[in-house]
């Protein structure tokens, strides 16, 4: 079904870069030249053969920290995105199909949550709850689910009035079939487009939280936290803070290149056979 020749160049670039990131994240302990928390050299050493990206504000190897950081960043962002999509789309579809008071209740509740600025809401919640990875994923996932809910509901409301859904209802199909077999396949295209975007927002959100000190706690570090640790160096012309920032940007672009390509494939109504 998949023919390598049919994959456009942009998708190849995205796939390769994303694969490198994921590889580094999964095999971090074997790939990284030094352990994550160990001070190996001087503070802010320049790039050299020994320290490929130089060292950070405490003299730790920046490349090693980047690799371990990728692990934490991608893991938390991916889990939070997955949570928000599963929760948001299922509830959104359900609201569209069931309608009535369920729809009203869910939609007004989501409106309420969305009325509060996300970052401030997260800061308040995280300052109360113990700061660990599970709480981070839950808080980010639940907050993002409101956006996914809105999109999923809007898309599903349109599909729900199509004749084929009515035909399924006349056949006597249950809601589970209607949501997962009739609506979901037809709502996949906008959802996947949103998925790429949401994942990147999750990375940025996590970085913002870590930058403010409420995200991943030391000695672990994600890319946002590393920007924070090294931000003073910018004044002295030391690029240590820019490298994790650049990594965030590259990841954002490559993931969206892949998402665009998947989007094109799911848009085809002929099962991608051409």
């Amino acid at each position: 079904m998949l023919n390598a020749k049919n994959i456009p160049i942009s998708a190849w670039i995205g796939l390769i870069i994303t694969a490198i990131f994921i590889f580094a994240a999964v095999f971090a302990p074997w790939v990284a030249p030094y352990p994550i928390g160990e001070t190996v050299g001087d503070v802010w050493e320049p790039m050299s053969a020994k320290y490929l990206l130089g060292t950070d504000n405490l003299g730790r190897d920046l490349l090693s920290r980047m690799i371990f950081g990728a692990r934490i960043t991608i893991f938390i962002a991916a889990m939070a995105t997955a949570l928000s999509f599963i929760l948001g789309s299922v509830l959104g579809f359900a609201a569209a199909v069931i309608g009535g008071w369920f729809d009203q209740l869910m939609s007004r509740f989501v409106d309420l949550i969305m009325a509060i600025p996300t970052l401030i809401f997260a800061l308040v919640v995280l300052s109360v709850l113990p700061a660990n990875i599970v709480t981070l994923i839950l808080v980010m996932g639940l907050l993002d689910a409101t956006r996914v809910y809105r999109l999923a509901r809007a898309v599903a409301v349109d599909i729900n009035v199509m004749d084929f859904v009515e035909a399924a209802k006349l056949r006597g199909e249950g809601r589970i079939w209607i949501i997962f077999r009739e609506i979901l396949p037809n709502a996949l295209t906008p959802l996947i487009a949103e998925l790429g975007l949401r994942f990147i927002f999750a990375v940025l959100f996590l970085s913002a939280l870590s930058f403010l000190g409420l995200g991943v706690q030391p000695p672990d570090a994600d890319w946002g936290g590393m920007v924070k640790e090294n931000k003073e160096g910018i004044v002295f012309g030391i690029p240590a803070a820019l490298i994790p920032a650049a990594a965030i940007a590259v990841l954002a672009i490559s993931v969206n290149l892949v998402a665009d390509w998947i989007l094109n494939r799911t848009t085809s109504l002929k099962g991608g056979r051409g």
Partner: protein
Amino acid sequence: MAKAPLKSKDDLLLDIRNLRIEATIYPPGELPKNITIVDDVSVKLERGKVLGLIGESGAGKSTIGLSSMGYGRGGVRITGGEVLLNGRDILKGGAKVLRQIRGREVCYVAQSAAAAFNPAIKLMDQVIEAALLHKICTKAEAEKRAVGLFKKLGLPNPETFGQRFPHQVSGGQLQRAMTAMALCSEPDLIVFDEPTTALDVTTQIDVLASIKDAIRDTNVAALYITHDLAVVAQVADDIIVLRNGKPVEYGDTRQIIKEPRQQYTNQLVSVHHIPHEQNNPTGTPILSVRNITAAYGGGLVKVLKNVSVDIHLGQTLAVVGESGSGKSTLARVITGLLPPMEGSIIFEGRTLSPRLANRTRDDLRELQMIYQMADTAMNPRQTVGTIIGRPLEFYFGMRGKERDRRVAELLEKIEMGKGFADRYPAELSGGQKQRVCIARALAAKPKLIICDEVTSALDPLVADGILKLLLNLQKDENVAYLFITHDLATVKSISDSIAVMYRGEVVRYGPKSDVLQPPFDDYTDLLLSSVPEMELGWLEAAMKTRKMASAGN
């Protein structure tokens, strides 16, 4: 404007020679390729004459019509031939010539007036726009001319009609306003692109008559594009029959409809003559609709008023009426989608629950529905096998090989091969899609199938095939049909009994032979007399003899 010197001496207005039109398509996963849409078509049109372009969808009729304005819709390219209008080749003149002729020498009347008018601008401003743009006359003159045209086209309150916005007038009126717009700049040629296809049958006849009058009075020439031979026979002097972009037959109207020389033309002419023996009611009906009153919006808008009809096993009840007469609502009430306010539905001797949610699975299985738009009635993400196989799984618990075998059987029944099971709806033609929907309904082994305008979105020949298939299946499976339609020709060919609906009420009901037997009530008379017949001069006769004005006015 220097228009007069360009006119040639003789009466030849439009001369299309060996026209060839191509387009590039981009099939996914393949290299782009050129396809020929119109191939070697030559057409001549004299001043004041009307040429009918007729063919099925995809025959290239609109493309040819638009080429007379030098326009290729959606990226099609005119790659060969000449289009001589008033003696000069408009394909060679470039943008300047095109700008001169469009809206001045050639005007266009689109199929969907509702989509073609700008909803934010008053009708008058849109009607006179072309005349002002070409500086044919002053604004006051143009408005006076427009009012005169409104009057001629039979629009209500011609003096103030132009002050309305497009959404404030009916579909038939809008179509006539568009004709007024085309006539306003007094062009030499008007291209009518299916101007009455989207209208109700009783409105169609009014629009048709006013278009015909306007053409006669203004001595404008016209290209009349349609798929309905009976319609074009009323207005055209000559007819060209097209198929797949190639001319099939070209002759005067009398010859085409009375003595067609080509087999394809003959098929088009003889469409709708399906022999069907009327069955008489047998004992107890399978479905009785008793005194149903239904409304939308919590009782505010009553759409059905005290409707009672019976359907017998293995027979067809046709429900006829215009849009808004409540015929589709009747289907929604019977299926349980819209619980009625009063009345009951008795199916096989048991009273059906008014709400869909409370019906048993057998009730649902024995009462199937086929929709007008086969496109939206099938999930585009499911293969034909899944679409037909799901009722088998759902009602009979069939799985695996057993199910696949039954799907193959059903595909055989609808005259489609086995290879179709793996296809997606997007890979089927319009007629095939409707066949798959029929197979899906049959898979449930129903006693009654509700057919909601199942043929109205299809080309005549394809629709013919579907009707024949439905009749054959009725014989084999002994299934009853509730056939909702606005097309009386269809009704005549397939029904056993008929219910005529008007504004939510059944105005005439009985066996086909009784319903179609005079004397008629006023509405049935209007409905029957509005169906175009393939006779010359039918339109004039019909306008004279009918008893009531159409509902569109």
